[in-house]
């Protein structure tokens, strides 16, 4: 139940009316003596309505100065050169001076430049005489609308250019579209960061549509630099397999090295094109290391699949895990090393057979309240 407080009418009036000068003083004296019950909801501040915390410019400047001074002190403490103390050095020193084993990395002690800590916010938008700086200030979303305005201006410019060329008779439909390469448009969040103001999904869609419209016009290559500002490069995803390089050792024997992982085992294999079919694992013979037939079959499978059983010499190292997972790791490493000796078609066949896919299965953790990862405790009806 909300706590209600008793207030006098005088304070209530003072809160609610700004200009109470018109109220008769005699009347107020009579009214002030009466007690009025007022709920605390009136004096409770709506904290959510204020929005994110705002920092003044002076406060942030003070933080920057403190950061610079602190950086010098830290450098002196660590015995380093205070002039060339980079952010990485700062991070290392802080990790050394304040060791923390907290799992959440963001909860650990941190010392960064205030620009990275405090969110970017807008400075005051108008000058001393009250006139706003930006001509679209009164729209509410000045950066977004000014971006749309500039974009539309560029479209008009391109259309005028097209008209001029058409008048001269030099217009050609298939000329000079912008080549973008593997890139994507800025996401809505990235655009909001860029503009330092919030935009709705509707606004974002309109922006993308207008950009696409500009890109579809014939002579849009003049605005390429402007468009690239709102694009992010994607790493080109190649469909080709990454094969280990084929090297030659001193005796002229071709060999290739590859690595493989399975569960907690790591293995590394050197495949030599000798012709003998010898296999060594961690210095031991493979019969000795893997007494079980199943593990030896796993080793042989890639070579038997390709029909090159007696051709290669294998020198393997493996660590971690149990016998089955070590065998699986070795199998993956052997398949990868084989890729450099085989043709594209054979490599594709290996991929289809599943020899080149790393097995992602790892041990699932045990959960509290259960016997194991999935097994629950025995259920008893009573």
């Amino acid at each position, binding site marked *: 139940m909300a706590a209600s407080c008793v207030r006098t009418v005088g304070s209530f009036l003072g809160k609610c009316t700004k200009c109470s000068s018109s109220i008769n003083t005699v009347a107020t004296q009579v009214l002030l003596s009466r007690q009025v019950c007022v709920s605390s909801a009136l004096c409770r501040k709506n904290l959510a309505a204020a929005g994110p915390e705002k920092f003044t410019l002076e406060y942030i400047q003070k933080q920057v100065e403190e950061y610079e001074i602190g950086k010098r002190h830290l450098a002196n403490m660590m015995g380093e050169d205070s002039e060339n103390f980079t952010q990485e050095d700062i991070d290392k020193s802080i990790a050394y001076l304040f060791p923390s084993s907290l799992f959440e990395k963001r909860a650990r002690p941190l010392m960064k430049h205030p620009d990275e800590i405090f969110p970017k916010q807008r400075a005051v938008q*108008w000058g001393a005489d009250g006139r706003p700086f930006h001509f679209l200030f*009164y729209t*509410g979303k000045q950066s977004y609308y000014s971006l749309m305005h500039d974009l539309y201006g560029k479209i008009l410019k391109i259309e005028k250019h097209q008209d001029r060329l058409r008048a001269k008779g030099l217009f050609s439909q298939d000329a000079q579209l912008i080549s973008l390469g593997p890139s994507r448009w800025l996401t809505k969040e990235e655009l909001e960061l860029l503009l330092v103001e919030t935009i709705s999904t509707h606004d974002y869609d309109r922006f993308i549509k207008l950009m696409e419209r500009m890109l579809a016009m014939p002579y849009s290559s003049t605005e390429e630099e402007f468009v690239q500002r709102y694009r992010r490069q994607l790493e080109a995803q190649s469909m080709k397999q990454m094969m280990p390089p084929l090297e030659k050792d001193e005796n002229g024997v071709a060999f290739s090295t590859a690595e493989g992982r399975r569960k907690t085992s790591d293995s590394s294999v050197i495949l030599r094109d000798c012709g003998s079919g010898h296999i060594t694992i961690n210095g031991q013979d493979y019969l000795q290391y893997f007494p079980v037939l199943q593990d030896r079959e796993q080793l042989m499978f890639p070579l038997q699949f390709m029909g090159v059983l007696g051709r290669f010499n294998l020198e393997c190292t493996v660590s971690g895990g149990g016998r089955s997972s070590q065998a699986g790791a070795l199998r993956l490493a052997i398949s990868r090393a084989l890729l450099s000796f085989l043709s594209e078609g054979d490599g594709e066949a290996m991929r289809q057979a599943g020899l080149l896919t790393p097995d992602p299965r790892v041990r699932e953790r045990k959960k509290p309240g259960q016997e194991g990862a999935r097994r629950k405790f025995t259920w008893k009806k009573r």
Partner: protein
Amino acid sequence: MIVNNRCFNVCFIFRPFRVPILTGCHSSIPLWWASLCDKKILNQPLEKPDFFRVAELFSLKDLFDARVHLGHKKGCRHRLMEPYLYGCRLDHDIIDLDQTMEHLQLALNFTAHIAYRGGIILFVSRRRQFGHLVETTAKDCGEYAHTRYWQGGLLTNANIQYGPGVRLPDLIIFLSTLNNVFQQHVGIRDAAKMNIPTVGVVDSNCNPSLVTYPVPGNDDTPAAVELYCRLFKMTINRAKDRRKQMELLHGLSADARERRHV
């Protein structure tokens, strides 16, 4: 105090009026600004009826060539626009260009005085065809524009929308008083609520009642809208240049007087 321009008296073309000094209930004139402005600079333009000679900027023929007289069809006619219409030809309303001339001169004169006194002018138009043109005009004058979706509390809830201590526009110029659904633009009502004078181009389907300085004319043809933009831009630039000249003039004369005294 705002000029009451409700009488359609044709005898006086330029009746003397009092220019509002920074309207808007949340604006506060900084003391240093008020003290800097010499009284002479502020009062001199008020002595002549057409101090900025805005009547020379356009003629009736310009208005006719820009097709300002073309209204909408008879069915779209607003009742309150009937005094401004010359007549109706084959169901098309024709706006009386003589009345448009006077109203446009008044409006341009008022705009010039506001710009002379350093007021904030906001250009508003919700027509997508002319949005870019209006924004460019505003940018060229050094004033402000709003051709986008009008958020409800822009004028009435300004302190919360923009931050405390924001200065509201001193004049709003509507190049089209209707919004995209053919209803009256919210800005007209809000400006009237906030005591901000408005200049508006009212077509034959618009309601001119809340606009302080209505200018009956066509708001659909590109030629007409380009004419209005050009006229407003020229008046504002003229007024600002005149202000700079006056400040220089009076500044010089003040220096000369000081030197003589010393």
